[in-house]
């Protein structure tokens, strides 16, 4: 008897992602898939719009990390107006954009850790669902919840000061930015009354990291072993190998730590990256051209970044990074749940970077834009909270977009997430007749470790509600569980 298990969000009629698992008559998992069920059509409908609209338009893909899309599109537009990439902008423009981006990293990572992961850590994976959410955290531990809310608030305030508003701002424009900080804005973020200032954010970020490490000490076997498998890793790095979330060159390493891509100018991404289309998901499957569809897939995001970079250019995060590297003896880290650890090290790095940028006199400068020789094509790449984000536009002589290609962070992680589902299904469901709560938890936890929300592609935040149905090969329902 072959069986098909369907795991799908919210009442079968809502949500943007769904898992199916097939078992053969021996109870072996023969197929498992994470389907992305949402399609928007951005690539086509931005055609015919003026290129300078792209930074405000395309960010409406994702309200969880709109700044990433805003900046990736702006970086592509920089190339189009002849402002070059990276260092081409004025120091003020580049630093304002960096500040905006690190504010975003800080708020998004905070949201993930406290609003999403902390309920599991505080209450355990088997706690009642009514408790296992941010409201439960607030009711159980008000101090922690308040801290979470204020950390996110600080990140959002940084975004509002640099982008003009908290969600879907307008600060980055082709060739630069449309405002810098006033001294008053800077002082408020740098020295604002407790606790809303950059210094307190560093302290709290250290606290979050300590909180996780304490949990790790007590649950080492689970954190190390859960849904672990080798992969390639891809991210931007600064040319000297430093972690840089705003700008750099593409680097990829394989499971043994060998560089399989290095010092690649992202304007040339087409020479290295392709996407495979599969009939059962709207999300494509990117791979490195030279390794091919089978072997060329890779991870992106915090775990991948801390695997590709050589060091972190702020002292406290570097210290934490050294400890992180020691855990694997310097080898690539393929432990899925270590993503939480990596994410919190980046949160600390973001806090330190915000303080440094706010202390830099350029941040209140008045030279905002540059312009050069108009180009017909531009690529913008950034490290979004969830990983590498690629925007590519071709523009006609009439300034209208003729071609747009977008590869969002979550798409890069498509294959790894599918493998994670398969890994967990095999481990927990092989030979089982009855579905239990822990089995469903396991599938959910594996997907969420990559991207708690599958943000740009599917359900956004909070835990993914699941329904699992077990059918026999005649389509008769054998068992059904919900959570």
């Amino acid at each position: 008897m072959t069986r098909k298990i369907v795991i799908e969000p919210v009442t079968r009629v809502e949500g943007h992602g769904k898992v199916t698992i097939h078992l053969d008559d021996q109870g072996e998992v023969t197929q498992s898939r994470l389907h992305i069920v949402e399609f928007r059509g951005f690539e086509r409908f931005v055609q015919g719009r003026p290129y300078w609209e792209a930074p405000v338009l395309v960010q409406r893909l994702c309200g969880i990390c709109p700044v990433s899309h805003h900046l990736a599109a702006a970086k592509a537009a920089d190339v189009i107006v002849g402002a070059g990439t990276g260092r081409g902008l004025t120091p003020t423009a580049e630093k304002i954009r960096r500040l905006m981006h690190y504010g975003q990293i800080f708020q998004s990572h905070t949201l993930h850790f406290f609003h999403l992961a902390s309920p599991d850590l505080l209450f355990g994976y088997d706690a009642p669902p009514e408790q296992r959410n941010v409201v439960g955290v607030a009711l159980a531990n008000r101090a922690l919840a308040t801290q979470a809310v204020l950390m996110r608030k600080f990140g959002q305030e940084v975004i509002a000061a640099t982008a003009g508003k908290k969600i879907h701002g307008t600060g980055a424009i082709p060739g630069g930015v449309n405002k810098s900080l006033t001294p008053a804005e800077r002082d408020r973020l740098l020295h604002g009354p407790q606790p809303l200032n950059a210094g307190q954010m560093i302290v709290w970020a250290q606290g979050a990291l300590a909180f996780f490490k304490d949990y790790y000490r007590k649950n080492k076997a689970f954190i190390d072993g859960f849904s672990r498998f080798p992969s390639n890793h891809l991210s931007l790095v600064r040319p000297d190998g430093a972690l840089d979330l705003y700008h750099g060159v593409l680097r990829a390493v394989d499971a043994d730590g060998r560089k399989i891509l290095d010092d690649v100018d992202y304007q040339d991404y087409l020479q290295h990256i392709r996407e495979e289309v599969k009939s059962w998901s709207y999300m494509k499957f990117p791979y490195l051209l030279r390794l091919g569809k089978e072997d060329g897939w890779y991870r992106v995001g915090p775990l991948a970044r801390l695997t590709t970079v050589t060091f972190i250019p702020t002292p406290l995060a570097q210290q934490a990074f050294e400890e992180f590297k020691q855990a694997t003896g310097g080898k690539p880290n393929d432990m899925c749940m270590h993503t939480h650890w990596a994410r919190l090290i980046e949160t600390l790095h973001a806090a330190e970077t915000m303080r440094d940028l706010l202390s830099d006199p350029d941040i209140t400068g008045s030279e905002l834009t540059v312009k050069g020789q108009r180009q017909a094509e531009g690529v913008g790449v950034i490290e979004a909270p969830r990983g590498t984000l690629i925007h590519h536009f071709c523009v006609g002589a009439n300034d209208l977009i003729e071609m747009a290609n977008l590869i969002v962070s979550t798409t890069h992680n498509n294959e790894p997430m599918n493998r994670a589902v398969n890994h967990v299904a095999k481990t927990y469901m092989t030979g089982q007749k009855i579905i239990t709560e822990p089995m469903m938890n396991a599938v959910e936890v594996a997907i969420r470790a990559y991207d708690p929300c599958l943000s740009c592609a599917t359900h956004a935040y909070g835990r993914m509600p699941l329904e699992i149905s077990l059918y026999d090969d005649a389509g008769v329902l054998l068992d059904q569980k919900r959570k």
Partner: protein
Amino acid sequence: MAENTMPKKIIATTSLAGCFGCHMSLLDIDERLLELIELVEFNKSPINDIKEFTKECDIGLIEGGCCNDENVHTLISFRQHCKVLVAVGECAIMGGLPALRNVIPLQECLAEAYLHGPTVADSNPQRIIPHDSDLPKILDRVYPCHEVVKMDYFIPGCAPRADLIWDALVALVTGQELKLTYDTFKFD
């Protein structure tokens, strides 16, 4: 605000064809979030693990319009379970940015994404466009919520300001009239 004797109002929220920016703006009420959870109880919502309505709700907040058949079913079920339904943000009110595809044949959108794009053009020899019984059906165009069910209130903005969402929620929860001030009420 509300006295403790008042029973907690029950709120449900969902994101249809939206970007979750409106949900994020709800979170941007910051410290007032802690105040809100004293006033209301959340039922079905992506911020918790409640996947189906477990009781009838007072207020349903809808982000996003309808771009596939699942969105339509979700919206109808919200109408059935919520006394008051609020369209939050441009996408719910008018279809928003995803509705830019309404003037373009759906087939062209799919072809661009899966056949013509520079990272798929030479790597999709079988010319696959995703189609599967496990994928929902995409509608011919993106529909605003009020074309599908009756909507009671509309909160404009993309995303609406957190202050506006807060004021509207307080008004709905306490039954008082909403005072609109210039700086919270903006279209964009």
